[in-house]
């Protein structure tokens, strides 16, 4: 139980209530700071908590007991208060004033004792007022005087200390001096401190627990890093602002946005390569979507989340329960510090025609040193920003073509985390002719800088493109990604969106292969899944058994694959068979009915309309001995799913189904 708490507390002087049915727990041993605009009731709340004001409703509990059933002196031995403007009697000395803090410990007959003397001495030491002891209080500077008053409250030797605006009328240096003294006393004595403060930045810096008050009600409470957001400042103080990390303390720093200096500031920022793409006072939370919508495919979580460093750092904050793409706290920081997804500027380093239908493109660039998601890529997917056909030259800097959003997402760029989540919507809103297309591909191989197979100095990634092309009137036709790949030449630019090595690990959402504890696996897919299956095979450890089935257009498309595991690989050249027929047959022959090791649930998969959505159903943690991973053309996948789940009775939790593309439909 908290030492001090308010329950449905309503406070009023004579008129309407100033604090309204407010409930609050003061965390013991911490510094709680109450902030809010003038007249929000913060000082009234403090007076209520200090027993100075009788509640009009509800109650204040001190150590579990209604504070008003306790005697004034008894309360004063547990709770000290420093009001906003205490008055020092004329000519009183520092020592004498501090000594008055002992009043609650003295009685009618109990006179000044050695204990009182000790308490005063301790209070003076802690507040560094020893050398002021014999001076008159009226002669002191504002900061010194405030320290003396704090010392007086300390001499009271209470477990709780409440201070009302202890920094008013002080210059900046003295404000810090006073707050340092308070936090020092909190740390050294464990005193629970409650401060009412009007300076939000100081509050954010010194508070363990921040309470924001508006119209007598709590708007937000918690650690400053979760509470101080641009939205909150706007709503509580009515002040549009930016919130960036305090370069000194790392706590949130509020930068108010005035009217007239902003344009200037904007141009200064721009000169430093920082681009803000949103109006400063635009409402937060507008862009709550990230790649979630980019992937029509997904029925699960977004594959590339934009999470913020503060979210990960503070752990169990309400905001981080689910990965919200938009940060609660937005700030200008290096993109790689806050965004799990980065934009990597690359160039084609080499191309290789693997077969009639496969072309390997090797991309490279300095940015890729920030690319990755833990150990082996497995079926790690990325987004390729295919430049528009109208692009002046294929070698132009991609970010210059695509706009500032992507420039801000590059490693090393300064990014406002708020902007990190909204780029997709903004990109989508651009006309297709100028924005180009976004396509999903698999990283077939990732080689860090210095790898012996590398052709250049920077890290490299290989992408195997399926070339589904037709020649019409001598013109190559196909999807934009395919056309780009087919015509790609060394030196062409490509912007890749992918995981930020610093913030992503093997739990990264862009990897779907999650066999869990399964020892027997099935990998099945068409040619678009071939790169993924080959990459997975390369990383499977010995001891895993099962089958890999890959249907490809022709015998010439049978690519080499290697694995240490006991998984048998079967390439299925389609020839003139319909797409997916051979694959389906092979899956049936491997997974008998009922499937061995399958958990029979008898569950009927709800009918999925392939034309409505591409099937995408994946699992996170299978504890079953069997695990299947199926990817490729969507209607093919749907057929296989129907067989495995309905006929073979395999638990859906054991199977990942992924429609990689859909016949007759472009990705977007």
């Amino acid at each position, binding site marked *: 139980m908290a030492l001090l708490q308010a329950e449905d507390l309503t406070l009023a002087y004579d008129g309407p209530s100033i604090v309204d049915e407010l409930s609050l727990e003061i965390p013991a041993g911490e510094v709680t700071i109450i902030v809010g605009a003038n007249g929000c009731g913060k000082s009234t709340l403090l007076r209520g908590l200090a027993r100075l004001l009788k509640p009009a409703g509800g109650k204040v509990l001190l150590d579990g007991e209604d504070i008003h059933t306790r005697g004034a002196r008894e309360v004063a031995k547990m709770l*000290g208060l420093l009001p906003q403007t*205490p*008055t020092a009697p004329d000519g009183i000395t520092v020592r004498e004033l501090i000594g008055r803090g002992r009043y609650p410990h003295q009685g009618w007959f109990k006179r000044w004792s050695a204990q009182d003397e000790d308490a005063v001495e301790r209070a003076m030491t802690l507040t560094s007022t020893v050398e002021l002891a014999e001076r008159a209080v009226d002669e002191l500077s504002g900061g010194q005087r405030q320290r003396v008053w704090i010392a007086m409250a300390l001499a009271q030797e209470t477990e709780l200390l409440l201070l009302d605006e202890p920094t008013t009328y002080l210059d900046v240096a003295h404000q810090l001096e006073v707050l340092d003294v308070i936090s020092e006393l909190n740390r050294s004595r464990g005193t629970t401190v409650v401060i009412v403060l009007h300076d939000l930045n100081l509050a954010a810096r010194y508070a363990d627990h921040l309470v924001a008050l508006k119209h007598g009600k709590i708007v937000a409470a918690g650690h400053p890093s979760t509470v101080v957001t641009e939205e909150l400042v706007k709503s509580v103080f009515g002040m549009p602002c930016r919130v960036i990390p305090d370069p000194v303390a790392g706590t949130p720093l509020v930068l108010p946005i005035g009217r007239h200096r902003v344009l200037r500031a904007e141009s200064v920022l721009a000169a430093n390569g920082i681009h803000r793409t949103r109006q400063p006072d635009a409402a937060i939370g507008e862009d709550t979507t990230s790649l979630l919508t980019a992937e029509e495919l997904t029925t699960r979580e977004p594959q590339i989340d934009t999470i913020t460093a503060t979210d990960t750092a503070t752990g169990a904050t309400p905001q981080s329960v689910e990965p919200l793409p938009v940060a609660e706290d937005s700030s200008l920081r290096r993109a790689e510090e806050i965004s799990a997804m980065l934009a990597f500027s690359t160039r084609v380093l080499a191309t290789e025609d693997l077969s009639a239908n496969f072309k390997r493109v090797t991309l490279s660039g300095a940015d890729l040193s920030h690319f990755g998601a833990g150990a082996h890529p497995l079926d790690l997917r990325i987004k390729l920003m295919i430049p528009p056909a109208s692009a002046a030259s294929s070698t132009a800097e991609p970010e210059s073509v695509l706009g500032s959003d992507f420039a801000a997402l590059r490693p090393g760029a300064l990014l406002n985390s708020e902007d990190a989540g909204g780029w997709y919507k903004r990109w989508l809103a651009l006309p297709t002719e100028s924005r180009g297309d976004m396509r999903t591909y698999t990283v077939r191989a990732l080689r860090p800088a210095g790898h012996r197979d590398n052709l250049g100095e920077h890290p490299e990634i290989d992408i195997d493109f399926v070339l589904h092309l037709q020649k019409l009137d001598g013109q190559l036709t196909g999807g934009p990604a395919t056309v780009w790949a087919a015509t790609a030449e060394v030196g062409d630019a490509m912007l890749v969106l992918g995981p930020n090595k610093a913030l992503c690990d093997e739990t990264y959402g862009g990897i779907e292969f999650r066999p869990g504890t399964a020892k027997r696996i099935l990998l099945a897919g068409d040619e678009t899944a071939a790169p993924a299956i080959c990459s997975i095979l390369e990383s499977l450890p010995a001891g895993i058994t099962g089958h890999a089935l890959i249907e490809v257009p022709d015998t010439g498309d049978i690519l080499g694959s290697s694995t240490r595991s006991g998984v048998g690989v079967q390439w299925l050249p389609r020839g003139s068979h319909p797409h997916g027929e051979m694959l389906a047959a092979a899956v049936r022959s491997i997974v008998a009915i009922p499937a061995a090791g399958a958990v029979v649930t008898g569950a009927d998969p709800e009918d999925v309309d392939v034309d409505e959505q591409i099937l995408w159903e994946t699992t996170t943690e299978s504890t079953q001995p069997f695990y299947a991973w199926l990817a490729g053309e969507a209607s093919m996948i749907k057929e296989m799913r129907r067989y495995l789940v309905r006929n073979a009775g395999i638990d859906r939790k054991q199977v990942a189904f992924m429609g990689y593309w859909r016949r007759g439909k472009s990705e977007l």
Partner: protein
Amino acid sequence: MTRAQRGGTKFTALKPAPVPALEPAGAQRSGRTIGVGRVNLLLGVGILLAIALNLLTGRHPIEFSDLLAALGGQRVPGVSFMLWEDRLPQAAVGILAGAAFGASGAIFQRLLRNPLASPDVIGVGYGASAAAVAGMLFFGAQGIGLSLLAFAGALVVALVIYVIADSGKHTGARLILAGIAVAALLQGIIQYLLTRTDVRNASDALRWLTGSLSASTWERAGLLGCALVILLPLLMPAASRLRILELGDDTAAGLGLRVRGTRLGLIILGVALTAVATAVTGPLAFVSFLAGPLALRLCQGRSHLGAAALTGALLVTAATYLAGNVLPETPLPVGVVTGALGAPFLIWVLVRTNKEGT
């Protein structure tokens, strides 16, 4: 360790270890007490001197040897009676009333944080006077009855002013103006009462109203003494509460003082002191008003209720001497002398406060 545990153990850990003896700091403290004590001693000596002066060199001087003999219990014709039935009761009443006025004034001045806020300036004294006059004229009230009437009148006025001035928060012009208005009203009432009664009664009341010790008897001194035996010891707790209250209401409340109750208690104490003294001597003008600030000077800026009481006593005894000897022909009522001393001081305070812009 959990937070709760930390909180629990910490509290006891904070309790200071027993300290064998007092350190220099303690000595310093007592050094200051000696300072105030010495002032009080000097004040006491001053009072005795003033009385002795009055007895030995006053209007009807007593030979030193006669004085000693009479004090020793011998019957000295023409001296013993004057000494025991007139001079000594007069001195006793002077000391007691002066102390009561002085302490009462200091309480009000510190409570309201304003040197002008003494009961005689803000009309509390007039409340006592008006009630007392009414009692004397209509009921022939005397003794305890008169004291109680004076107390009631003073209390009513004090509370009225207190309410008008709004709980001591606006102790500046507002309080003084309220007091002056109330005082004027009460003076009017007193005048009216006097015109309505027959001349002989009225002249008695008038003499009482100027404030005089001439009607002092042992009985009256005893009455006053009894009241003060109860009231004066209360100055100790009153002083310790005033010390906290003068830090501001919120600070005081934070230190565990019941602010409203304490303030009301202090007002009642101050009113009682003024009332019992007024009932016996009539309003001795400006004793309340002068004693506090003078004591403050004597104690080098440290306010002390005891010193204020002694200063009040000294003021009255000294004024008694002056009243008896300033004019060769006619002795003056003490109240005229204290009034003459107080008026210039009042003007000075007013000018100064005006300059400070309070």
